[in-house]
């Protein structure tokens, strides 16, 4: 049974300023499932709806963002949660941090700058579980941090005394303190140096392998997905273009957008010329008709302008939304 089922999800930002209304269709018809014990990568360019998707999936929806249609359902063991129905108190008490936790790009915004790290642990554990016995809380927190390979001294430091990589690892330690079923990591290593990035991602992978939970890893960096994710979903303009196990996405992509993305990646050891796509990513307030990729697609035909392509299943766990693939042309 899947841990998370997302069905035909549409989430729009609706604003009205001086009578001019505007709708940004950031997530526009996405369906996917997360299984237990896997790392699912979401890749896409800026403003393709990655972060909006995470907001909806993690239940942090604030106006002007609204879920228009669709379902987000979790199954944590025996405990089923429908994100559209759950009341905010239950979400806070039983789901956040305990079942779903969140690692963000700038962990400085998670860590309180004027309190030592241990106090941030105290805040979170105190709010979500309560601390009846301070001594056992301290022992458990130290043990947790040590298991993750961090020096326990960091607990007594302030966030500004830590390097960026260490802060990000502390944020992961915080996110895993209740051993949640799902860890959502949104660009967790984007601002870090490559050596540190490697260390932080290794830590995330080791935790996942150890505890068998699910990681939803969102990053625009395809090379990171190649090395970390089990499956990858490629987003374009608010929709999923293609989804497949990592090896297939990189070795046998079918969607023209995926093919272009993979083909344009520079790598050490290969100086052959790489082309760039023409055009620019669409504005989601006014996306193109039909397939949203058609203005930039080198193979687009008339049908692509007219009809929105549905996801078709190509093979086991390989789905793609492209008319040309469906018709057997590509």
């Amino acid at each position, binding site marked *: 049974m899947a841990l998370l089922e997302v069905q035909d999800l549409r989430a729009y930002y609706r604003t009205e300023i001086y009578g001019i209304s505007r709708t940004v269709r950031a997530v526009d018809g996405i369906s996917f499932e997360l299984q237990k014990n896997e790392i699912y990568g979401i890749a896409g360019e800026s403003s393709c709806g990655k972060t909006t998707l995470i907001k909806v999936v993690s239940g942090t929806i604030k106006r002007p963002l609204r879920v228009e249609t669709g379902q987000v359902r979790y199954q944590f063991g025996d405990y089923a949660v429908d994100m559209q129905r759950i009341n905010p108190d239950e979400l806070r008490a039983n789901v956040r941090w305990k079942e779903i936790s969140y690692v963000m790009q700038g962990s400085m915004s998670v860590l309180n700058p004027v309190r030592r790290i241990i106090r941030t642990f105290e805040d979170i554990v105190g709010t979500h579980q309560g601390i009846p016995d301070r001594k056992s809380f301290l022992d458990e927190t130290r043990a947790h941090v040590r298991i993750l390979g961090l020096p326990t001294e960091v607990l007594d430091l302030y966030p500004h005394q830590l390097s960026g990589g260490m802060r990000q690892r502390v944020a992961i330690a915080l996110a895993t303190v209740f051993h949640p079923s799902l860890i959502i990591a949104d660009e967790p290593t984007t601002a870090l140096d*490559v050596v540190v990035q490697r260390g932080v991602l290794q830590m995330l992978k080791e935790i996942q392998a150890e505890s068998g939970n699910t990681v939803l890893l969102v990053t625009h960096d395809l*090379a990171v997905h190649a090395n970390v994710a089990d499956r990858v979903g490629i987003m374009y303009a608010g929709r999923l273009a293609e989804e497949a196990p990592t090896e297939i996405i990189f070795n046998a992509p079918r969607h023209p957008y995926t093919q272009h993305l993979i083909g344009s990646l*520079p790598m050490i050891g290969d100086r052959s010329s790489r082309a760039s796509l023409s055009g620019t990513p669409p504005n989601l307030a006014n996306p193109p008709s039909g397939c949203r990729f058609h203005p930039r697609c080198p193979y687009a035909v008339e049908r692509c302008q007219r009809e929105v392509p549905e996801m078709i299943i190509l093979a086991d766990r390989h789905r793609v939304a492209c008319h040309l693939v469906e018709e057997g042309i590509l």
Partner: protein
Amino acid sequence: MSAKNKLLDVQHVTVEFHVGGLLGGTRLVAVNDVSFSIDSDRPEIYTLAGESGSGKTTLARMMLHDLDPTRGKVLFEGRDLTTVKKRGEVMDFMKKVQPVFQNPFETFSPLRRVEEYLYDTARSFIGARNRREAAPIVENALNQVGLSLDEVSRRYPHELSGGQIQRVAVARALIPQPRLILADEPVSMVDASLRMAIVNLFRKLRDEQQVSVLYITHDLATAYYISDRIAIMLRGYVVESGPVEAVLDRPLHPYTQLLKESVPQPRPTDRNAWAQHIDLGTLEIKEFGRIGCKFAGRCPHVMDICRQADPPDVEVDGRTVKCYLYLEDAKPVA
């Protein structure tokens, strides 16, 4: 080769900053005895690569005449930059060396139309007296980056995509017909599908316009793709430099080896090498203050001598490497 034949000649440059209080505090050596040069008659793309805190941007500031070195010299067309002081001389220098920065949305004011910057540059450097005179110059520069005046005129920065506005930034830099473009992380804010457009543009400028590019980046993959030569920096030192194929295909310095191995490659079949566990615990120590090789604390081949004195530059296998490991194989560079 005489200094006259060099476009840019950086000679044993050191920059020290004072960190801390008015009376106390410590010295921080941000750039330490760095030398390299770019030939005048052979345009090339030279990459300075390194992680944060390696001194790349400090070096860039010196080459833009924004900062004077504590020791050593930066020569541009044979002339020491510290002697370039008069307004006319500074303008002449600025005309020949143009920057492109990391975040195009910070480069351009959000309240000003982007075309104004292009007209301003044409007015200040080319001497265009009015818009009518400047327009063909601006149009020509935009055409070189694959844009046209129609596409950008009357637009504010937020109306253009990241890739478009970064190309406008390059077009602006091209207006004075510079000999050197200094690009500090020009693609790190640009989306993957547009990144190659910018990177390919630098290649084209080198091949068709004879413009040299000093490409400053932490991204070894694009560096490998476009550059002719590369210098790998660590904590203010250049630890390895030479032709990009030599340095990145067969890195010799243990730091370059670690760096190359840590760059995630977009090939899932190679993921085991990348997943080999690295210990970050020791990374957090302050490496700037270390005596001897700055990498000694995490080097797998560290010897006693590495912690005692700065390693010499040695010439091995077509590149220069700052490491004791290769001292026996070759003669130190004088």
